[in-house]
């Protein structure tokens, strides 16, 4: 099963590297959001809660784009039939999709977090980076578990591009609450503060619950 997941993940990553459909669009949307936020907030530099909010809005918007595109290769040109015909466990498909989305999110953040620091962030990024990276990776995992489930549901609908963000945003609010609270301390103007343990815990538990839900439901989601 593990082997299958890795093969499927390689397929998704290869498609992305050759086609460059999701990640560049996600990066561009994130950068545009940062510019819009600068003008909307009317501030040249942000710190604390405002900086945390701006960063997470940017990440969330670009994530919804990625979630909407996650199953496009399967839904177009009968790719889903090919995947389902191959002797692969459904859970392996889920694991591959979660990993693919996670990789895309990390790739996007490698570009946009420095861009955010350059364009909007008041305090220096370097001292905050270790803790910030921890929260980012954990939340990316939560976004990936929720997103792979939502993407699989939304792709069946005629209004796929509309539904993916509409479903994903409310479902992502709980981990986002925790992530913004945690990041606000990290990006505070007086240097990074400690992160209370409950925030990473909420995010991790949420990711766990949606991971389990995904495993339980994927047999029904991927069927054609």
């Amino acid at each position, binding site marked *: 099963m593990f082997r299958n997941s890795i093969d499927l993940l390689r397929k998704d990553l290869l498609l992305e590297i050759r086609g460059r459909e999701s990640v560049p669009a996600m990066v561009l949307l994130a950068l545009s959001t940062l510019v819009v936020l600068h003008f909307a907030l009317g501030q040249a530099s942000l710190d604390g809660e405002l900086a945390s909010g701006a960063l997470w809005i940017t990440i969330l918007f670009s994530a919804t784009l990625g979630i909407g595109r996650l199953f496009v290769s399967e839904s177009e040109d009968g790719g889903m039939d090919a995947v389902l015909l191959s002797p692969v466990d459904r859970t392996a498909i889920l694991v591959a999709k979660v990993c693919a989305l996670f990789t895309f999110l990390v790739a996007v953040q490698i570009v946009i977090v420095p861009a955010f620091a350059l364009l909007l962030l008041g305090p220096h990024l370097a001292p905050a980076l270790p803790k910030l990276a921890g929260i980012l990776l954990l939340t990316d995992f939560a976004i990936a578990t929720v997103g792979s489930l939502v993407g699989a549901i939304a792709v*069946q609908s*005629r209004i796929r591009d*509309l539904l993916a963000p509409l479903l994903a945003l409310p479902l992502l*609010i709980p981990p986002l609450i925790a992530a913004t609270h945690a990041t606000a301390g990290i990006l505070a103007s007086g240097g990074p503060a400690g992160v209370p343990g409950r925030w990473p815990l909420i995010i991790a538990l949420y990711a766990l619950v949606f991971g389990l*839900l995904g495993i339980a*439901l994927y047999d*029904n989601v991927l069927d054609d």
Partner: protein
Amino acid sequence: MTETRKAPGRGLKRLAILTALTLGTAYGLVFFWTPNEADQGFVQKIFYLHVPMAIVTLGGFILGGIFGFLQLRSGDRKWDLRSYVAIHLSLMLAVGTLITGSIWARASWGHWWVWDEPVLVSFLIVFLLYACYQPLRFSIEDADKQARYASVFAVVAGAFVPLNFAAVRLAQAYTHPRVLGGAQNSMPGSMQLTFLLAIIGMTLLYITLWKFEITSKTTRMQLASIKRRLDSDATGSPA
């Protein structure tokens, strides 16, 4: 075939009468028996409408999730219909809950919307999620697929309801003191009794509407299938 089946609307009339009686009594008591709350006065009586409505709404969402799970287990589309009607009704009640909640907030706290109140905020998030149920459902054409994906949504969203309430509560419990915490424990007996009756009445109302909607939908489907048979007989026989 249809003769052996139970008539879909059985017991609906009795249920409707019982609902009307319970709700009538409950709101009669609200206006003529329960005392005005010392702090908020008359406006607090919206509590007997708002809180039962909110409880029944959330119960309905979770019920929809359970029906959705049974649909996925059995593959029987009758469970999907039940899940759909449960969520559909809960959505309408949710609008009512948000409106009455907003009115209550305005009257007692002076604002139409209060972000400090975790229950209110959680409720809005849940409402926003369920508002996608119908767009999702009706944008999938194939009937079996529609039933399956709607049920998957119902299960995911049903699990999300308690999770979301816990997360929002956790996030705010540390930053804001709970002003209203434990207020219900200090209610006098007459208020408690009336509140209980209002919850029972609201639940009965939900069950009645749910049964009515199911009856109406199954009857319509039966009628359509009879009509189809009639048409095929009429066109088939002369040839």
